[in-house]
């Protein structure tokens, strides 16, 4: 198995050169820092957005009406959410309430979405009507509820407290389907994002050999397929080191978070279609085939480039291509069947991400064996195609036989 032996020599060199490079720590930390920033900013901006986007209604009426509305709001917010109702702000009524309402709506510092005036029995809401009419509908609910409460208090009657009987189950089919869909999407996103990060590495990996002129020594010593395969294995190893580190950090963070906030937070209980025992190895295998397929393609494309500038030029189309592949694979998560879904399963570049989505939805295992064999075949074809293209365009060599002739696996002749 000279191919694998030679590929191992190349892989070992590349792996050591990358992992022991001082820039590797940046490679490892960059996604962590990026992910941390994304979470921090999304949480902080989310909170700010929610506060900033909350509609405010000016209540221009007597304090009794305002208090009634305000108390009703507080009560309802307790069982719904703060965002479910507009914020109410009391404004002393002037002589001409209609004119005052127009002035309040025109005042940009007040930032009012509507103005309530009058009383609970004769309410007036001044303001624009948006398509959803959130402010109008919710203000009507608040007024009606306030009136109902006032009426009950007037009659000195209060309804008996409601006791809702709860029968607790572990699962409901609707929520399981949703959770599995989310799991499939998460797995696809994971595979996609890590492969995306390594795309530039795959594109530029042969530029080093070409610029250092060592490519001829390599090409004279080992089959070109070994060089390509070795580089793919090295990159896969590098990505797995990253995955292990990022996975460990994520697991630590989740465990820590859960331990700290277990009283308030509960993790959703979901099991993928094939079960966790099969899903995790399948995720790893599909990540591997996805990476090998795309990296072989990008390695082949990048091998044609003569400089980093050319690599940079080709990076954008490559990222767009990956996005298209992700969109194609996502049809499996969202779709119920049909030609597009089958195409996503069968098209080699989308097959790994499509199949991991299937693994999250369905309990069938045999399709995965077929898919993995199919994807492995395409890895071989991609490596062979890329190396032949490289030989033809870079070394300007003539054809060296059939695409499917794999006799480089043979042992070398003695002598």
């Amino acid at each position: 198995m000279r191919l694998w032996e030679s590929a191992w020599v190349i892989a070992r060199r590349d792996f050591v050169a990358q992992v022991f490079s001082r820039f590797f720590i940046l490679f490892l930390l960059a996604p962590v820092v990026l992910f941390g920033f994304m979470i921090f900013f999304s949480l902080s901006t989310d909170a700010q957005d929610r506060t900033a986007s909350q509609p405010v209604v000016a209540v221009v009426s007597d304090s009794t009406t305002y208090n009634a509305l305000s108390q009703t709001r507080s009560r309802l917010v307790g069982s719904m959410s703060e965002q479910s109702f507009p914020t109410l702000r009391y404004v002393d009524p002037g002589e001409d309430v209609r004119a005052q309402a127009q002035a309040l709506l025109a005042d940009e510092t007040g930032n009012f979405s509507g103005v309530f005036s009058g009383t609970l029995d004769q309410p007036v809401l001044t303001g624009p009507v948006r398509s959803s009419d959130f402010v109008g509908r919710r203000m009507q609910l608040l007024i009606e509820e306030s009136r109902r409460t006032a009426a009950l208090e007037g009659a000195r009657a209060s309804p008996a407290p409601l006791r809702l009987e709860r029968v607790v189950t572990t699962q409901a089919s609707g929520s399981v389907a949703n959770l599995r869909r989310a799991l499939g999407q998460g797995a696809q996103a994971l595979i996609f994002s890590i492969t995306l990060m390594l795309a530039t590495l795959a594109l530029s990996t042969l530029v080093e050999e070409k610029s250092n002129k060592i490519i001829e020594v390599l090409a004279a010593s080992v089959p070109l397929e070994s060089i390509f395969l070795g580089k793919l294995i090295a990159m896969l190893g590098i990505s797995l080191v990253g995955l292990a580190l990022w996975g460990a950090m994520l697991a630590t963070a989740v465990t820590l978070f859960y331990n700290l906030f277990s009283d308030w937070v509960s993790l959703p209980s979901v099991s993928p279609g094939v079960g966790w025992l099969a899903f995790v190895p399948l995720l790893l295998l599909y990540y591997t085939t996805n990476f090998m397929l795309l990296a072989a393609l990008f390695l082949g494309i990048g091998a044609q480039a003569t400089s980093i500038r050319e690599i940079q030029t080709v990076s954008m189309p490559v990222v767009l291509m990956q996005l298209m592949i992700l969109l194609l694979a996502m049809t499996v998560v969202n779709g119920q069947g049909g030609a597009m879904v089958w195409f996503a399963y069968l098209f080699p570049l989308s097959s790994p991400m499509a199949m991991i989505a299937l693994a999250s939805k369905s309990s069938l295992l045999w399709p995965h064996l077929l898919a993995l064999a199919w994807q492995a075949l395409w890895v071989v074809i991609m490596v062979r195609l890329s190396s032949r293209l490289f030989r033809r365009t870079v070394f300007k060599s003539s054809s060296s036989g059939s695409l499917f002739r794999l006799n480089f696996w043979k042992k070398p002749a003695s002598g």
Partner: protein
Amino acid sequence: MSAALAIEAKGLFKSFDGKPAVRGVDIAVPEGSIYGVLGPNGAGKTTTLRMLLGIIEPDRGERTLLGNSRPLEMARVVGYLPEERGLYPAMKTREAIAFMGALRGLPLDIGRKRGEILLQQNGLGDYIDKPIKSLSKGMAQTIQLFGTIVHKPKLIVLDEPFSGLDAINQGRLEHMIRDEAAAGTTVIFSTHVIHHAERLCERIAIIAGGEVRFEGLVKEARERLRPQVCLKTRAADGKWRSALPRDARLEDDHWTFELPGTGIEPLLKALLDGGAGIEELSVERRGLHDAFVAIAGETAAREMEADEAMGDGG
């Protein structure tokens, strides 16, 4: 030819973008010999070597390397120093040698040991753990050469190995080539410097314009030209002058001309009988340079001289 052949090529043809680079090259390199491929830059030497090694496939023709028509399958017993030298700059010297050996199937630990020995034997012991980027160009070239031979190949192919080396290192390289050949290794190298080939090779191929103009023993190439006669006489003129060929040239009191086909004896007799008064007479076999000019032509020879003056490969 009775000896077993390390390399045999018949009718190798290669063109790039429709322009022929090598046109019907025939080469036969006996096992254990030192073989030179001579020619100016662009003659097709590198393309020929690449085809022989299987780095590129010929458009037409056949070649066998150590008896195998798929040269890459013999890579483990072949060492190759390309014209464009290349090493990983961050790699340490011993690791670089071991890595090149590992590419040819030599276990890394043995490669490291042999690399260390090679470095120490050649006065580079202080550089064992130095990265390639810290070495001079000549030193890096020497490291690559060690990497070419670390796995003890049966065949060593060197493309312009003397290019870029100073006189001392050129001498070391010649010594190393002789040592390898003495140990039974076949060495083939390309060069545009004739005197390297003349000093080292038993057999040569002269390539010009993508064609092999001569292939055979160095002696045979030289014997294609008649020996050169250099004559100094006391008499300035006389009957003896009729014994000299028409194209005899007088330079600094010395007549130089090719030895006539009749041989030395009739010439000597005519000079003595004609009263030339011989002061000096020498008959010298012609050098490879003259043979090259005669075989490849004046233009190719001038290109070779220009390449040599520039010190680049080809």
